[in-house]
Every structure is written in C-alpha cells, then in structure tokens.
C-alpha cells in the first residue's frame, strides 16, 4: 500500500473527471475528515485517513481491500474505473442517462444502451462524454460513454447505440472474483 505518484494521480483524475468534472474537488476536500487515494496491488482505494491508519498495521500480503476500490491501473499504466466506484460517481455525475425498465435487464447483462431503451438524457451531452446510467427509478446502474450527443440521439433509428457500456452493477454477480 502506497500513495499514488504524480503521474498516476494525473491519469486517474483525468479519468474520473470525465464523469464528474470539477466535482472531483469535492471528493478530495471533504468536510467529514481527510480522505486519500492509496494504491495496493495495482488497485486504487479511496479511504478515510483514520481507516488507512488501521490498515497500515496489516502487512501487504494479508491486506485484501480497504475503503472503496475505485479501479485499477493496467499494465500499460492506464486507469480503468471499476463499478465499485459508482457510489462516488453517481451523486456527483454531471451527465446522466436514464434507461427504460425494459432495457434495464439488457444493460445489467453488459450490453450497450440502444436508442429504444433510452428514457431520458441530460441536455447538451456531447459525444464521447462519460455518463452515469440510471434506471427510471433513479437507481444508479452503471456508467459508460455517450455514443451520440443529445441532439443526434433524437435523430438516430431505434436500434442505434446511444451509450457504450463500461461498467454495470451486474458485475457484482458476473465478475465477483475480479472486483479487487
């Protein structure tokens, strides 16, 4: 377990900022205590300082997880967000997509969101903008990337993809063993 290097921090923040923009500031400066990012086994954990101190007592090979896992660095030093970060992305998300109840199932199985399943979308979402996907009951289901801007979404045919799938909460069941 160690703090992130400059480079790692930059890569990770760039990635997170795609979804929550300047709200990233709120993650770093929190009123309820100091929170920090820690790297352990190539994974980035977002954790309160108090909890981190307890975890410091535990040797590296015996430590499995602490706080919330945000994602992992790949071997090529890119950052990949995990669905476990959804709890922090969803409240701060700037661009959202709501999908119809009929399309929920499909999205939770790892498929892209089609125009036919699109319920609502935030105004003036640009193409390739990171979006958080909600159900119509406002339950965050995952996140992805807008394949079309809001304007284009109105014109395309119903079978066109409007949001590329990146992560969804179905992974808790599908990929339980790779979450950390």
């Amino acid at each position, binding site marked *: 377990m160690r703090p992130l290097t400059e480079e790692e921090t930059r890569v990770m923040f760039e990635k997170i900022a795609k979804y929550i923009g300047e709200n990233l500031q709120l993650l770093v400066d929190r009123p309820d205590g100091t929170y920090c990012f820690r790297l352990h086994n190539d994974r980035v954990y977002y*954790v*309160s300082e*108090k*909890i981190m101190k*307890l*975890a410091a*007592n*535990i040797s590296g090979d*015996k*430590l*499995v*997880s*602490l*706080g*919330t*896992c945000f994602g992992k660095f790949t071997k090529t030093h890119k950052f990949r967000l995990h669905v*476990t970060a959804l*709890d922090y992305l969803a409240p701060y998300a700037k661009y959202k997509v709501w999908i119809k109840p009929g399309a*929920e199932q499909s999205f*939770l199985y790892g498929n892209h969101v089609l125009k036919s399943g699109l319920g609502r979308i935030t105004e003036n979402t640009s193409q390739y903008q990171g979006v958080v996907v909600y*159900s119509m*009951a406002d*339950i*965050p*289901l995952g996140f992805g990337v807008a394949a079309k801007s809001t304007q284009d979404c109105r014109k395309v045919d119903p079978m066109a993809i409007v949001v590329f799938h990146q992560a969804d*909460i*179905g992974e*808790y*069941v599908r990929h*339980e*063993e790779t*979450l*950390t």
Partner: protein
Amino acid sequence: MGRKLDPTKKEKRGPGRKARKQKGAETELVRFLPAVSDENSKRLSSRARKRAAKRRLGSAEALKTNKSPEAKPLPGKLPKGAVQTAGKKGPQSLFNAARGKKRPAPSSDEEEEEEDSEEDGMVNHGDLWGSEDDADMVDDYGADSGNSEDEEDGEELLPIERAARKQKAREAAAGIQWSEEETEDEEEEKEVTPESGPLKEEEEDGGLQINVDEEPFVLPPAGETEQDAQAPDLQRVHRRIQDIVGILRDFGAQREEGRSRSEYLNRLKKDLATYYSYGDFLLGKLMDLFPLSELVEFLEANEVPRPVTLRTNTLKTRRRDLAQALINRGVNLDPLGKWSKTGLVVYDSSVPIGATPEYLAGHYMLQGASSMLPVMALAPQEHERILDMCCAPGGKTSYMAQLMKNTGVILANDANAERLKSVVGNLHRLGVTNTVISHYDGRQFPKVVGGFDRVLLDAPCSGTGVISKDPAVKTNKDEKDILRCAHLQKELLLSAIDSVNATSKTGGYLVYCTCSITVEENEWVVDYALKKRNVRLVPTGLDFGQEGFTRFRERRFHPSLRSTRRFYPHTHNMDGFFIAKFKKFSNSIPQSQTDGVLLCRSGWTAVVQSQLIATSTFQVQAILVPTPK
C-alpha cells in the same frame, strides 16, 4: 414480367402455422393430470354414459323383478332419447338385449363406437373372468352394483390390475383403515418404495398395526432388526418411531413386560437413524440434547428449508421503499418479526431474488434470520473500532456497518482467501466504506492489531444447526471433528478476548456465536473462556431464544451461562444458533498456569458455596490473587 395475380385462381389461404392459436393451459393440463379423476366422464361416450345410467336404473328395477344383476335392462324400459340416438344402434341394442349378456362381440357392427365395443368386450370378458363372482354375488345387489362400476372404471385396465383393485376393495371391507395423517406424512416415502412390495408387507403385519391403539406396541426381536437393516421399509420405521416415542412418554404404563428403557431407546435411535439418515454419532449427540418429542420435531425441521429472509441495507434505502419495489417485481414478502426493523421474509417470488436490480444496487442482502441476531447482540455504536474475526461472506459485517452508519472502522478478517472475494463484492455492493478486509488466521490476532472496542467472533463450527442447508453434516461428523472445532474455537475465543480493549469507554464487549448446537462447541467453549480470561457473561439483549445450559450430563458450567442464548430450527424457524455476549473487565491475563488452576478452583468453590453470580466470583478471584500487571 412475373406472374400476375389471378383472382379467379386464387388459392385459399387459411391461417398459417404460426397464426394457429395455441390451446389454453386447461387442454394441456389434462395430459399431465392423472386420468383417475375423469375416468368416468371422459372415457365413457355419451351412449355409454346413458347406458350406465340405465343400468343403475335397471338395477333398481331389478330389485323388484329380481333379475340377474349383470343382465342389460330391457329396451322397453329405456328412455326415449337413448333409443333414438342412432338408427342402426337401435336394432342392435334390441338384439343385444334380447340375447341378454351372452350377446356376441360387437365386432360385426362397424358403426358401433369404439368405446362401446370396448365396453361390450369388457362385459363379456368380465363374465369369463369373474364367473365365481357371479356365483357368490347373485343376491347381493349392493356389492354387485359396486362391482359393475368397478368394471366400468377399469375399462382399460389389465386383468391383474383389476384383480388388485378387487383385493383392495376386499381389504377395505375387512376393515383395514389407513390413518389419514400417516399416509400424508409418508407420501414422499411411498414414492420411493416400490409399489407392490409394501402392499404385501402391510397386509401381513396389518393385524398388528390396526390394533396399535388397543394393544401395546411390541418391540421387534433382535433378528428382525438385522433384516430391517438391509431393506428398511420407511413407513414401518416411521410408525415404529411414533409408537416408541408414545410408549416412552408413559413408560410405566405402556411398556412391554421385561423390556428396559434402554432397549426401547436403542431401537428408537436405530429407527431415527434409518428414517432421517443420520450418522449414529450425531444422532446420539442430539438425543442427549433434546427430550424425545422435541428431538423428532428437530429432525423433522431439519428436513425442510428455512424461509428466505433478507435484510434491508439502511445505508441505501428504507425497508418500506424496498418492500414496495420488490412487491412491484412480483415478490411476496412480509416483515420478519417484531425484533427486527430491517428484516423481510420472502414467501415466493416470480423473479430470482438474488439478481434483481435492487439486489445488484445493494438495497438488500440475503441473510438468514439467525445471522442478524449476533450483530444485534453486539450492538455496535458509531465511531467505534470493531473486529469481525471470521467475516465471510460479509453479511454480519455489512449489518454492523449499517448500524454504525458507515462511521468508525471495521476490520473484517477471514482465514479463507476464496471466501474473502465474496466479502469484497458484498461490502462494495452494499456501499460499506468503513472496512478494512484482511486475510489472517484469527488466532494471530492480538499480535496484528488489538485494542478493539467490540469483537464479533462467528466461529467456524461443525454446522449442526444448519443441517437443512447442508445435509452432509448428518453423516460426516464424528467426535473428533467436534473436538477439533471446539479446540479451534477456544483458541479463537481467547484471541478475540485479548483483542478487546477492556478500558474502552463505549465498548469492551465481545459476541461469540456459532451455527452449531452441540454443547462442546458452545457452553463448553464459553465456560473455558470464563476460566481463562477476565471476562463475564452479560445478557445478549435478545428477548427470545432458549437459555444456555448450565449443566449438561456430567458437565457443570458457570451459572451465568444462563444469559447465553440458543436458537433452534423447530422452535424459532431459523437456523440453529448459539450466542454469548461477554464483557471484558480487565485487560490483564491471568498468567501462570498453576495460579490459573488454583484461581479457577477457588472461584468454583465460591460459586458452589454461596451461589454468587459471575461478577462477584471473579471479583473474589481478583482479590484472592492479585494479578501481575
């Protein structure tokens, strides 16, 4: 140019294959239902039904005219409609009637319906078959009408089946009655046992069984038990279990002369082992644990699964909202009980309850009712440091986090790396952020980190309380396994106690729980810890459950074990569980072995003499032996 549509030559197109409407379920259902129920209505053609009615009428007539019961009623007595049904049928039936029952087989008549021909054949056949029946039933009209109906029912039955049916009827007449409850109870077993075998056996010892109420049950001789071992007849075994339990309840009056209680008990033990397929060892343990009537209830409860329960994740939602969302998905549920504000019990569900979007979003956790109790007993407070020593799969850990509102810190530890994966998944899914997950052997604990405000030890155990979940426990445990578990539990419990900080302002508590019901893994372990460390038992704060044992066979435990709680499948409809809550009152460890023993002894004598409660005995100890700091 292509072909042109010629309206005159237009082929008539009906609805396509796919357009054909599927028949409703009621038509399909008939194929699956046993044919017995609708034999009469379905198999008989309208004519045959009319004829049957006539025959009934005819037999009434026959009473007056004293005719042969098998004979067809005369056409003159037929109602109009029946005669007019078919032009060709009329003369035929007239002809048949004229010839009486010795009419020829109707194969000559091609217009005759198949059912008719079959039935006619039947009658003929019946004549050949049951000539002696005729002989002894000439005057007996009531029996005869029943007999003829039987024949109608059995139109397509083989002769052997009809013979069996007759035999059954005779048995019924002889007065062999099947007890309703027993047949219901044994339905499962009946399916297992071959159809023909038990019937004969029942017949043979039927005399013994009918008279169970009047005559005392006779314990079978030793020779028969050997024979039983090869091919046990579960119905008989079950009945015998009931009989023996009944006798043992009122042993003085009902026992057979010259038989001792132990003989009955041995027989009962063997029978229970056969019937519920338990190993001898575990069954012996259970017999020591429960009174007999309760034992059977317990074994019976282990055969049925416990209800599916779930716990609302109050970090993300409220119970009412969750219940509403699940009801909308077609789940039938109810609040779990007065004691839980977050539990829901699921009766049935049209969707998989472990894969709804609500589940994936972490709004609830599937958790047995009994697993919520230890956390409620532990009662974690906000901003505390808590250790969960054996946390997988994270149900109790997440419950603690939700009670603490994600404040403080929980160290979730488990020795099994495989099972830790589910802990990581569950905690992240439920939005628990205040945990550190580690992979130590719990026995290393005070060395790694100590000084926790509260510790929950859900110790690994033999699982004798969750037999309904894992029936393998019935046979694969023996004395050694239990003792090995108990030994590990003692080590873990001491480690856990040492990890607690007695001087904590809010805490200093430890909850020990197992999903086992054996005394070795529960009271014994707790009693051991009471002797070894400066802890005392405190009430668990759960207002139901049975008290722990203070005396069990040759063992005598500390009187304060009354404040521990036991939960059983048959009394509380949750998994078998044991919960003990300790309060640690000093961080010092009673050091040297000899001192420890002396100290224990003095403690014990004090208890015996003055019946002091746990607190005061240990205070006495502290005064007697000033513990080195």
